[in-house]
């Protein structure tokens, strides 16, 4: 309760501000329309109209909630109008990208920790790679992959992977390097092989770092997928929903898709949190 109360208060404040903003931002159109119809609006009418517009500049919270509810439960999950269906498309690409990114990140990190050549060669470019606006060239990436015969889920997943490998790489390099000198020396005093040091010392001590970066990575992966879907052949997925909402000026649809994405992100992060808890608990690392 003591934890929920502040959060709820802040949420309430946000909703109040939101309603205020909705009235303020939608008023212009309502008044323009009234002017075109040669009528004037009372304050009451004005407020009512601003909160019920078809294509508001800022939809009111209840409009978004309804749009979201309708999108999620208003039809069969398999329907193309269902946010669950689109969420699923996005989710599958996200997970594929996340898996590729995580695997790449871990592999690179293992290489970097074990080979000085790798460390010095790859690390600076890994940093630079993140300043390439991959999102801006997402459509091109998709075309290039299509020309190599790779279509469908994979191109999106690769964009997602590009964004998610970096946090994993950084976290894992840090994690694999956490064992302090004493712990490494102990291993050496037992004459342990490199593989033994890796499996019995480096890997277990890196797990807390791994999970921390997995949470960042999964969020990044979702962003990557959505942007991969955004301008690049809007077919299905939450990104496509966002785009088509934007294309047809359906602000409520945009916001619903946005919230669906937010919920998805929260669920994914929470899921990793649960896995983390279970793993660390089994390892005796959680107290």
């Amino acid at each position, binding site marked *: 309760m003591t934890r929920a109360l502040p959060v709820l208060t802040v949420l309430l404040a946000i909703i109040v501000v939101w309603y205020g903003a909705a009235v303020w931002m939608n008023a212009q159109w309502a008044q323009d329309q009234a002017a075109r119809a040669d009528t004037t609006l009372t304050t009451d009418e004005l407020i009512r109209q601003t909160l019920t517009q078809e294509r508001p500049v800022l939809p009111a919270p209840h409009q978004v909630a309804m749009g979201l509810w309708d999108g999620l439960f208003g039809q069969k999950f398999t329907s193309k109008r269902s946010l669950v269906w689109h969420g699923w498309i996005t989710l599958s690409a996200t997970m594929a990208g996340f898996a590729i990114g995580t695997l790449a990140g871990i592999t690179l990190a293992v290489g970097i920790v074990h080979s000085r050549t790798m460390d010095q060669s790859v690390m600076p470019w890994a940093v630079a790679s993140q300043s390439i606006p991959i999102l801006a*060239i997402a459509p091109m990436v998709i075309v290039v992959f299509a020309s190599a015969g790779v279509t469908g889920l994979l191109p999106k997943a690769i964009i997602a992977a590009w964004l998610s490998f970096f946090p994993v790489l950084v976290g894992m390099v840090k994690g694999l390097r956490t064992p302090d000198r004493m712990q490494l020396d102990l291993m050496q005093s037992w004459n342990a092989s490199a593989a033994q040091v890796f499996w019995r010392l480096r890997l277990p001590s890196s797990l807390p770092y791994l999970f921390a970066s997995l949470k960042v990575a999964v969020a990044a992966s979702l962003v990557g997928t959505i942007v991969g879907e955004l301008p690049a052949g809007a077919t299905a997925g939450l990104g496509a929903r*966002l785009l088509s909402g934007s294309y047809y000026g359906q602000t409520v649809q945009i916001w619903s898709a946005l919230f669906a994405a937010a919920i998805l992100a929260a669920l994914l992060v929470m899921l990793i949190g649960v896995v983390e808890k279970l793993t660390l608990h089994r390892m005796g690392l959680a107290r």
Partner: protein
Amino acid sequence: MTALPILIVWLGAWGVNSWLSRFDTRLTRTLVPIVFGTTILLLWEMIVRIYSVPSVILPAPSQIGASFMANLPVLWTDFVQTIIKGALTGWIIGALAAIVTAIAIDRSTFLRRGLLPIGNFVAALPIVGIAPILVMWFGFDWQSKAAVVVVMVFFPILVNMVAGLAATEAMQRDLMATWAAPYWQSLWKLRMPAAMPFLFNGLKITTTLALIGAIVAEFFGSPTRGMGFRISTAVGRLDLPLVWAEILAAAIAGSLFYGIVALIEKKVTFWHPSQRT
């Protein structure tokens, strides 16, 4: 068979680097990544030529370089529009807003408890999704790009700054208490300096976010300049070397941006163990 030269170059460069990295001096530590990067470019050029990849799919580095040099004025205009006006302005506004908010939140445990979980949540959201909305709200020019950037960088910086302000050691706070230090004194002389490493962590993460935000927002409407604009129109004109020149410019700008922030960090948090090599 055609892959043989590619393989040879790769193995040769790797050998050179393995040998270089054994010395581990200042010089080799700059040399090794340069050799690595050059090798990648070389391989790219070779692949494009040997397999005659059409330039509308993947131009060769040499073409990209030529286009970069030929289009310097265009690249500069786009840089100013997107990076300086869009990304930088938005980043600065967002960072300032986040810092001020963090200080405000820090005074109230209630607010901190309320805002932090929400902040953490929002920081993980696909914020770019609001780009079309903000373009609708703030118009076509750089203001809407800056707004996207503000929203994108605000929460990561906020979360870091709040954590930073709370990251003082109990002993350091107790010391302040024993001196009966008033709030502003302990904020200014203890919490602010102690928060700097965290703040810069947030600032560094958000440099790339700022670039991404500014560029992506241009897809949803822009004046006839800007890196996002140029990329999408140049793709439409099949001027792929120009597209890649823009990407190159963005990567350079991004690395510079990051590097400058890291440099300032080094100056400001010189005392932090991670900076004291």
